[in-house]
């Protein structure tokens, strides 16, 4: 509650709305005690005085009544009616919603069909029909507006209740012998209350506006009783001679509703957790780069091996969520050579995908920020490129194959057109020629009947076929590097094997380098020349695939390899790694794996543990690498 009010107060607009609303409500409450003229006493001799006349600060209306006084009394009525209508609608609507959502089945069906019926009417028309039945009058207008707003509450509340009604704590309450009524009151109601408040705060202004509207039409407040709407309606007749009579009540309604809406938006934002997590903001075209650290090997950046296609040096990528900073990539360096396949292996959350996406600035930002390092290709630092320069590399020099092709292909564009688009972005081909190339590409990835498939939408293809389309799209412009981010994880085993074979074959045919991201050492052993193992945002071991599989040096690598079931060795049961990786916003000192490692000792939890070279082309981030004689260790300790 305290956090809610604090977050509301921080929102300046909402605070402003709250203050204005409070003032208006206060004014309405103390009106009877203010030294005002009687709002209903007519004084024909004083009719239509303009504002600022003597004795009538805001002038008089057609019957010589003081407008200021009438405004304040009218505000009282409008506020009271609007709030009463909202409460009635909230009460009945929420009740229907809760009952419908909790009991479900037939009850739900009947109630919701009724609500649908109400919603089939254009909103105000239904209110008019109700007033036609009940007859004009302020109370009847109140009922009419309340009734037409019931569906909003009923639907919203039902949705939330359905979500809660099947949760464990409700079952627990039921098993403990609580009756439905008690469960509704003690378990359901407290959980749906925020939704009721949000719905209420976003509809109150609207309901005040609508009751005023009915009065404006002469169907609400009847003379001599007046609310702001009926004053506006009366003023309309002398709009041209004495505009203030109509303008002032309208202005008050406007200010009142505006203040409520400002506050309502604030309440909604304060209660909506998505806003804080950044889930409602649009990712920028390129990941934000704010390098605090430049590559630590800055001076020897030019000395990277000439055969290297891509060199990543001390890359840091953070996620900034409110005050928390998650270090997703925490100083990663590696190189990829032409025609090489480098595997990047680790559990989910180890930072491998973020590393891959950082290469071309594709990490969603906010919340992602690249805070340090260099990514070098052709002697250029990719992190220093403009958006325009980056676009020329994306899809041309470096192409991506993503994990889940159902969510990564555009659902409403034919696959052929998606390919044509990719081709024409980087090649000066006519639409027809690009189309032919697209069909050829589909054939190359072994999609049967490519001509027809090109006309289809992603949802019409099978999972394996969709991934082939993803691979075809990556191949469209003959890239020098393909970044494959778990390209086979979403596929079943046989399809997985076909996709791997496809990637293998294309590498042989075209000589493309591949950065292959996976959590599966089984897959690594099939396709990767070298492999880098990542844990908690860092590379913990890197080397040739055969060497690492043969003799892992890092305990984490060994555990990962043990996770792979081996054919023909039924006794060798795959073992899961106990425990969870550390939270990326609270990385421990020393080795991040220490808490899950059987071999950890006190020294593992202190200081910075560096990557050390062990064998040829091999590095490991461990102070006591497996399978090495003790003297080898002593020599390289930092």
């Amino acid at each position: 509650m305290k956090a809610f009010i604090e977050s509301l107060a921080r929102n300046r607009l909402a605070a402003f709305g709250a203050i204005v609303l409070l003032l208006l409500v206060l004014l309405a409450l103390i009106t009877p005690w203010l030294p005002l003229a009687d709002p209903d006493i007519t004084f024909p001799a004083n009719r239509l005085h303009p504002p600022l006349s003597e004795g009538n600060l805001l002038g008089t209306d057609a019957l010589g009544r003081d407008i200021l006084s009438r405004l304040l009394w009218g505000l009282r009525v409008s506020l009271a009616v609007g709030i009463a209508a909202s409460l009635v609608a909230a009460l009945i609507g929420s009740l229907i919603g809760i009952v419908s959502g909790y009991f479900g089945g037939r009850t739900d069906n009947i109630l919701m069909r009724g609500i649908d019926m109400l919603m089939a009417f254009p909103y105000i028309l239904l209110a008019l029909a109700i007033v036609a039945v009940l007859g004009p009058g302020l109370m009847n207008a109140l009922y009419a507006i309340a009734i037409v707003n019931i569906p909003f509450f009923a639907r919203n509340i039902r949705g939330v209740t359905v979500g809660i009604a099947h949760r464990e704590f409700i079952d627990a309450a039921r098993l403990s012998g609580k009756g439905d009524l008690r469960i509704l009151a003690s378990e359901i109601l407290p959980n749906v209350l925020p939704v009721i408040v949000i719905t209420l705060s976003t509809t109150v202004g609207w309901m005040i506006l609508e009751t005023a509207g009915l009065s404006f039409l002469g169907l609400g407040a009847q003379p001599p009783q007046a609310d702001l709407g009926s004053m506006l309606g009366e003023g309309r007749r002398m709009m041209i001679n004495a505009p203030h009579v109509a303008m002032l009540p309208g202005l008050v309604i406007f200010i009142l509703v505006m203040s409520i809406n400002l506050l309502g938006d604030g309440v909604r934002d304060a209660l909506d957790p998505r806003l804080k997590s950044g889930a409602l903001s649009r990712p920028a075209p390129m990941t934000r780069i704010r390098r605090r650290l430049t590559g630590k090997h800055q001076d020897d950046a030019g000395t990277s091996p000439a055969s290297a296609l891509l060199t990543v040096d001390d890359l840091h990528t953070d996620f900034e969520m409110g005050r928390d900073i998650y270090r997703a990539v925490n100083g990663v360096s590696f190189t990829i050579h032409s025609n090489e396949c480098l595997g990047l292996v680790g559990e989910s959350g180890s930072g491998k995908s973020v590393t891959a996406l950082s290469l071309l600035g594709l990490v969603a930002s906010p919340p992602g920020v690249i805070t340090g390092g260099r990514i070098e290709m052709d002697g250029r630092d990719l992190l220093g490129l403009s958006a325009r320069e980056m676009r020329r590399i994306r899809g041309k020099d470096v192409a991506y194959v993503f994990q889940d092709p159902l969510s990564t292909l555009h659902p409403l564009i034919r696959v052929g057109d998606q390919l044509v688009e990719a081709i024409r972005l980087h090649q000066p081909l006519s639409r027809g020629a690009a189309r032919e190339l697209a069909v050829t590409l589909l054939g190359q990835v072994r999609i049967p009947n490519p001509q027809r498939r090109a006309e289809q939408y992603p949802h019409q293809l099978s999972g394996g076929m969709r991934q082939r389309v993803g691979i075809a799209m990556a191949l469209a412009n003959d890239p020098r590097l393909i970044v494959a981010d778990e390209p086979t994880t979403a596929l079943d085993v046989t399809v997985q094997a076909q996709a791997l074979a496809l990637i293998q074959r294309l590498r042989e045919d075209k000589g493309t380098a591949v950065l292959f991201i996976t959590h599966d050492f089984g897959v690594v052993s099939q396709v990767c020349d070298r492999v880098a193992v990542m844990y908690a945002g860092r590379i913990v071991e890197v080397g040739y695939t055969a060497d690492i599989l043969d003799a892992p040096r890092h305990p984490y690598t060994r555990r990962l390899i043990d996770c792979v079931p081996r054919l023909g060795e039924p006794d060798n049961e795959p073992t899961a790694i106990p425990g969870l990786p550390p939270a990326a916003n609270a990385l421990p000192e020393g080795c991040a794996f220490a808490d899950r490692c059987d071999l950890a000792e006190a020294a593992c939890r202190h200081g910075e543990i560096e990557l050390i070279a062990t064998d040829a082309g091999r590095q490991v981030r461990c102070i006591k690498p497996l399978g090495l004689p003790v003297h080898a260790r002593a020599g390289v300790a930092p």
Partner: protein
Amino acid sequence: MTRYALRRLLMTLPVLLGLSVIVFMIMSLIPGDPAMAILGSYATPENLARLRADLGLDLPLPQQYLVWLGNIVQGDLGRSFTLNRPVLDEVMERFSATLILAGTSLVICTLVGVAAGIISAIRQYGWADRIITLLVLVGISVPAFWLGMLMIMLFAVELRWFPVSGMYSIYGGGGLTDLLRHLALPSIALAVVAAGVIARLTRSNMLEVMRQDYIRTARAKGLDESRVVLRHAFKVALVNLIPVIGVQAGFVIGGAVYIETVFQWPGIGRMLVNAISTRDILLVQGGVLVVAASYVLFNLCADLLQHWLDPRIKA
């Protein structure tokens, strides 16, 4: 698609039936003798007797409903006693005027709202976004009837750019130009609220879509931002927005009641307000029924359009 359309059409029938029940109840819920209530000051003994026979008021309620429904299906909505003409004729004449107004408004609010929402989403938290957010807030808080009066005073009375009220000029009027001149102010006044709502929902929808994986794919291809937004993101957002626009159509038709009163537009909203004041119940019934049924059919079309645009659901 055809099968879906047929199924959807069949599902509309119970809704229409339900509507007719509710509208029928309007009459039967009125306390006292419905014939008396319908005729009001026109309740001569002959009239009363004729109406009772017409409506079958001596029958039990369900049978009365069937008689009434039978009449409606044959296009007989009864006779307005205040206007002394068939309800159907009056309703159709008035409703077409409302459709011109509301249709124009719907086009305006859709174009303006969607454009504002997209700009707002692209420039999230920038100046354009802030200004649009503020305008949207003003738009959904301003009483449409008051805004209409302000517009009359500024653009019709002071600047004399547009006529003050009505649908056609009384002298030398007629023709499309005259209609458009009369249409300008009320259609804009009517569009303001809905434009605000559409802008808001377009913005949040675009932001939602921009976070999807296929947008990242589009960027990974090397697509420039304007095409990512307009071709890839908007395509999906538009499909999501169609039902929103369908709902807004209901608000626009409802809001027409106020705007027609302010601008003296000879539409069905004004007719209903008058009919309620004069207790011309058959006219109210007929008007509500026709408008509500058209709204249901409009939403049916919106639904079919959405399915046609979204190939995922066709399968």
